[in-house]
């Protein structure tokens, strides 16, 4: 760093430089990059990342500049986009889909002065952090509601891409549905995409036609809600966003991703020069996972149970994966009273006992 710049940017920069933080010579606002997998108005996952990003920008005002690219395919194209952001002078880049994991690691190796934050992955480096939310906590509540609300005892699940995060969600929902309703069964459809409204609609219709009266989704659009609304008498849950426009029916609750506090925290860390590579995994308690208003379609006693579970999870009194739990082959992987550790959860690639079918590999 040149002396002139050092003087100009003042004490903050001097402080950061003293700590050896990756701060570039600059006068303007700090550039913060976001790489999105879908369009910013998808109504779900990407929309909420963008929403949180904008909250972060509001918090900092003119001190940061938001640079984002939407609908980036998971693959080599993502590397190109990230490289471009680095060359534009972004100091911190958030890559917000599991499939951006390897591209993030590759680009991070080429730009050691830029820090990266990858959502939902597990590979870290000196300048790459990972962050994710404990969505499975929300899935437990959905499973509970699904088990209570279903009349046909058939619950549909639109699964996206076969990675541990999605499998964990299915397991968590199933465990809690079975707990309150021993006759419940899950019908699972994998569509191998995060966002494809037409396919999601077709999948929802297929599930409803086969008698499911609750449809859970791990895909990003509101298409399944529209299908459920048309069919009538089918319950759905908002995914990533509240999707409140479909409340009180078919949407009876939702999992809301709230990334804003984390984004503010991390950008602040870069400004202060205190950023270091971390592995963050927060749930309902920390506020990263929000449970959307349980609608009036749910009876009061069921609603109270679900809210009690939410509060117990938030307070750390209850863990959705508490033994005894067995996998599909009947092997017990958690003994009575034992709680799953993060390693087990992060690598979960098996169904629990009672779910039929195989996970695509």
């Amino acid at each position, binding site marked *: 760093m040149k002396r002139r710049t050092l003087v100009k940017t003042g004490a903050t920069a001097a402080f950061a430089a003293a700590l050896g933080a990756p701060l570039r010579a600059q006068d303007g606002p700090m550039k913060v990059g976001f790489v999105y997998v879908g369009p910013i108005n998808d109504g779900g996952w990407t929309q909420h990342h963008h929403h949180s990003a904008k909250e972060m920008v509001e918090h900092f005002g003119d001190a940061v500049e938001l640079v984002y690219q939407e609908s980036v395919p998971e693959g080599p194209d993502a590397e190109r986009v990230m490289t471009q952001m680095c060359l534009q002078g972004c100091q911190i880049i958030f890559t917000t889909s599991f499939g951006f994991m390897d591209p993030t690691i590759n680009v991070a190796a080429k730009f050691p002065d830029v820090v990266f934050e990858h959502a939902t992955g597990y590979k870290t480096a000196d300048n790459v952090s990972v962050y994710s939310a404990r969505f499975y906590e929300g899935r437990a509540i959905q499973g509970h509601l699904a088990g209570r609300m279903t009349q046909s005892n058939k619950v549909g699940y639109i699964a996206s891409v076969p990675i541990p995060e999605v499998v964990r969600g299915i397991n968590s929902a199933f465990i809690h549905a079975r707990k309150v309703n021993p006759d419940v069964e899950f019908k699972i459809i*994998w569509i191998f995409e995060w966002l494809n409204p037409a396919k999601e609609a077709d999948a929802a219709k297929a599930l409803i036609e086969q008698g499911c009266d609750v449809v859970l989704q791990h895909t990003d659009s509101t*298409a399944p809600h529209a299908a459920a609304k048309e069919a009538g008498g089918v319950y759905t849950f908002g995914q990533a966003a509240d999707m409140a426009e479909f409340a009180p029916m078919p949407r009876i609750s939702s999992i809301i991703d709230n990334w804003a506090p984390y984004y503010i925290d991390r950008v602040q860390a870069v400004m202060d020069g205190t950023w270091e590579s971390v592995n963050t995994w927060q749930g309902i308690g920390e506020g990263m996972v929000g449970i959307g208003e349980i609608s009036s379609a749910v009876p009061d006693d069921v609603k109270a149970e679900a809210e009690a579970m939410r509060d117990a999870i938030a307070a750390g009194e209850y863990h959705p994966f508490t033994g005894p739990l067995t996998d599909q082959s009947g092997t017990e992987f958690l003994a009575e009273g034992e709680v799953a550790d993060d390693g087990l959860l992060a690598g979960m690639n098996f169904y629990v006992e009672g779910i039929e079918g195989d996970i695509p590999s």
Partner: protein
Amino acid sequence: MDLSSINPLLLLASLMVASTPILLAALGELVVERAGVLNLGVEGMMITGAACGIIFSTLTGNAWLGFAGAALGGLMLSFLFAVLTQVLLSNQVATGLALTLFGLGLSALLGQSFADARPPAFPKLDLPILSDLPVLGPVLFRHDGMVYIGLLLVVAVWYFLARTRAGLVLRAVGENHEAAHALGYRVVLIRFGAIMFGGACAGLGGAYISLVRVPQWTEGMTAGAGWIALAIVVFAGWKPLRLLLGAYLFGGVTVLQLNLQAAGLAIPVEYLSMSPYVATILVLVILAAGRAPGSLGKTFHASR
């Protein structure tokens, strides 16, 4: 596995809904290609139609006007293609690809403020006697109007190409544009007409996704349906009735594989996911594909 949970009647009914977008788009492209023009911009025209459909139906509150707007949107985009390739003699392949990219961007721009829009409900056919027939009723007579328009269009296009003089002229232009020109036919004019018909059909197909099948607007929501439509035209050997078979087969296996997954069939999901493509290609190839129109994709100018 519980195959009994699949209701064949509902399956057949949803097959028709899932196939209609591809059928409409492919039918338009078939006419375009029979006139000797290769328009690879189907995906772009479809997605533009999907966006225009949402915009027009939300603003007017009428789904039919939404479809009219979608046809207009697709038609205008294809007009651009026609001017570029027929008047300015640009390369059809490159222009078509550019049209797809342009359409994807344009639709994203147009649809931006309509992400939360809910299109008006599209009425389903409810005939007093026919809709209540025991088996045929739910399968055939309880759909929305566009399903039947798609089927009527197939018959109309078949009749036009195979049985009318105008259709013969259009095919002649596609087979050998120089000979057609020498006989005094207006090659460029006829192609303009065909291209715009193709654009309107693609627009309708796209709007069917955004107004009926999903129904809402999301960027890039056609998700490759335009490319499937293009492939089906080729595999159907440029014949309208085979095209109907191909589109229904593709839509049918797509719906079937989702149903089989839900029923827990013990076949790896990966095979089920690829099955629509494999089945469609296999059947249409076994039927022996037809020959491509002689002047397909070639640039025409009267001076040559």
